[in-house]
């Protein structure tokens, strides 16, 4: 089995390290180094931001439509990464097939957990949140039991580099950027240009009225759950070769996507994407430029979120409602 790095450790800090897919051009003159550093930051920030955006949009979707605060969202992403790891490294299934299989299995898992768990206690919002934490824990511990606590790597889908302004960018990074962009555009088309998208937005706006118009909210909830989980699965599939795969890999992106969702404003999908990009770039800049930045990465992102909320409590693009009354 291929193990790129085996680090025993459980603080959850090292498991989301950006392996700079870029071995910056060697010591030449400083201005050239600065340019290559800039390119690195731009590309890695876009990778991180894009992945966070895909995750955050999925999270925001299920929360906005069904009011399910799904803490297990990134756990589904972890499941996909592990399934791909297992399929490619152990079963040696060809890559496209294993990607497809992993995402399908994750989506099915999401639907099953929705039907068995979330659906039954939807009216107790905090209980749903706790159940999702329990589900995430269940996934984490099961994976820990099966795979052990090592951090592993998945072989890249696309090998090779492209030279941009003196720094080498791997195809894998470009692939990640491209895929997350396509996913987001696809989702936008789905939400704004199709009947299903209309139905989803109608249910999100007013469940009772949507029901009167002949939309079955429960079916929409399930479809949204499937979309949301499959988005998480796609993100996991794209990211598995770039970041390390371990049973604690869900914790750190979870906090970041929660921050991104709130930063953009709950319920605003465009806001989510902007929030995720801001946080992705912040993280990358801190990692590259600040000494000891690996530890401060999350702290700086979260501080930005807190500062924004101090100034604008509804988030950057949030809609201000009249203070809600029951």
């Amino acid at each position, binding site marked *: 089995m291929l193990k790129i790095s085996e680090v025993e450790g459980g603080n959850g800090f090292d498991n989301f390290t950006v392996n700079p897919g870029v071995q910056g051009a060697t010591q030449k003159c400083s201005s050239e180094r600065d340019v290559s550093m800039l390119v690195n930051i731009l590309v890695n920030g876009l990778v991180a931001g894009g992945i966070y955006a895909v995750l955050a949009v999925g999270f925001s979707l299920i929360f906005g439509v069904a009011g399910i605060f799904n803490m297990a969202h990134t756990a589904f992403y972890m499941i996909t990464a592990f399934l791909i790891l297992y399929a490619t490294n152990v079963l040696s299934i060809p890559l496209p097939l294993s990607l497809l299989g992993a995402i399908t299995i994750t989506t099915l898992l999401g639907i099953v957990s929705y039907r068995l768990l979330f659906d039954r206690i939807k009216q*107790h919002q905090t209980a749903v949140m706790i159940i999702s934490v329990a589900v995430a824990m269940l996934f984490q511990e099961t994976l820990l039991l099966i795979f052990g606590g090592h951090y592993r790597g998945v072989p890249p889908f696309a090998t090779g580099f492209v030279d941009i302004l003196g720094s080498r960018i791997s195809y894998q990074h470009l692939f990640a950027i491209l895929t997350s962009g396509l996913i987001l555009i696809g989702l936008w088309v789905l939400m704004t240009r199709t009947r299903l998208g209309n139905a989803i937005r109608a249910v999100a706006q007013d469940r009772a009225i949507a029901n009167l118009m002949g939309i079955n909210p429960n079916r929409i909830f399930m479809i949204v759950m499937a979309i949301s989980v499959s988005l998480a699965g796609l993100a996991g599939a794209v990211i598995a070769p770039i970041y390390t795969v371990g049973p604690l890999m869900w914790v750190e992106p979870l906090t970041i996507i929660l921050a991104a969702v*709130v930063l953009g404003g709950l319920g605003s999908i465009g806001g989510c994407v902007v929030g995720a990009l801001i946080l992705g770039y912040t993280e990358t800049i801190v990692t590259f430029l600040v000494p000891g930045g690996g530890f401060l990465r999350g702290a700086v992102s979260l501080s930005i*979120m807190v500062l924004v909320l101090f100034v604008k409590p*509804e988030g950057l693009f949030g809609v201000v409602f009249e203070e809600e*009354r029951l």
Partner: protein
Amino acid sequence: MSYFYLWYGWFKGEILAIPGRVIALCFFLCLFCAPFVTQDPYVLRIITLSTIFALFAASWDVLAGFTGQLSLGHALFFGVAAYTAGLLNSHLQMPPCFTIPCGAVAAVVVGLFAGIPALRLRGFYLGLVTLSFPLILSGLLFVFPQFTGGELGISGIQKLSPSRIVSYYIVVVVFTFSVFVMWKFTDAKSKLFRTGVILHAIREDEITARASGIATTRHKLLAFAISGFFAGIAGGLYVHFLRIAAPSTLDLFFSFQVILWTIFGGITTIYGSVAGVFILYPILEILATTAWGEHVRFIIFALILILTLLYMPEGVTVWILDKLETKCPRCKIVNAFTRKKCRACRAILLPKET
């Protein structure tokens, strides 16, 4: 002698007649008598840690359950108090009786600071801001390892007391007192504090509360301070009991754990959080000792949580008390489930629909 009858009458009417209170009384008796039954250090350790965590969980309940200020980062208070107590003790050699209150005060200050966003945010926004504070702080801990001990934390902290039994009783007495204060503080019918009913009002409808002349801002900050204070005491006790202040006290999981315990036991009831901890924490610990349980204990933990929440989403204690107690439809007095007629007004109690 007449005083005796007076007290006995009170005891009979207020405690013996209500199953929930009988259970609470038995629980505290067991807690105080445990060292007479066994002095096994392992058992005492589990009970002590459960007690500390129960205090912590109850403090979360005050803030999130009663006041409705969802705090997803309650480890902030615990961790701040733990580190304050640990640093004071290891750098300045202050005794525990001084460091624990200092830690609690530090937690109150942090609580007030964390409460400032509460004035403008609500619901999940507030939850996420509170979630981020302990994570920001733990990021800072790792950056200054020479001062905070970094990943290893601060070790070699003084024990609560040289004797194991005395430490046990310190924790239990502090716990009993704190839980009583929190219960009175949040009890809407309390004659001691007026805060209980105000906190309920703020949770149910903040605008109406404000319109009725309640200074909601001040009371929300008060709830943050009180909750932070008791969480801080729990943090201080924890540090002096385990003799180490580790960064895990600021973990995401540590914050979630309190919520898991409280929701499992029953939110908006101080006793629910205590019961949740005393059921779940020992199960986890006992599983850790068995050979097979060590690896699957969190799986079992998660399954227990999922199953209870599916069948009793309001929490275990609420479900049990609902079975054991009936409220009289006429005079609203709580009766044991065995009674056919209300003990105060003799109204006929209807059997529960199930």
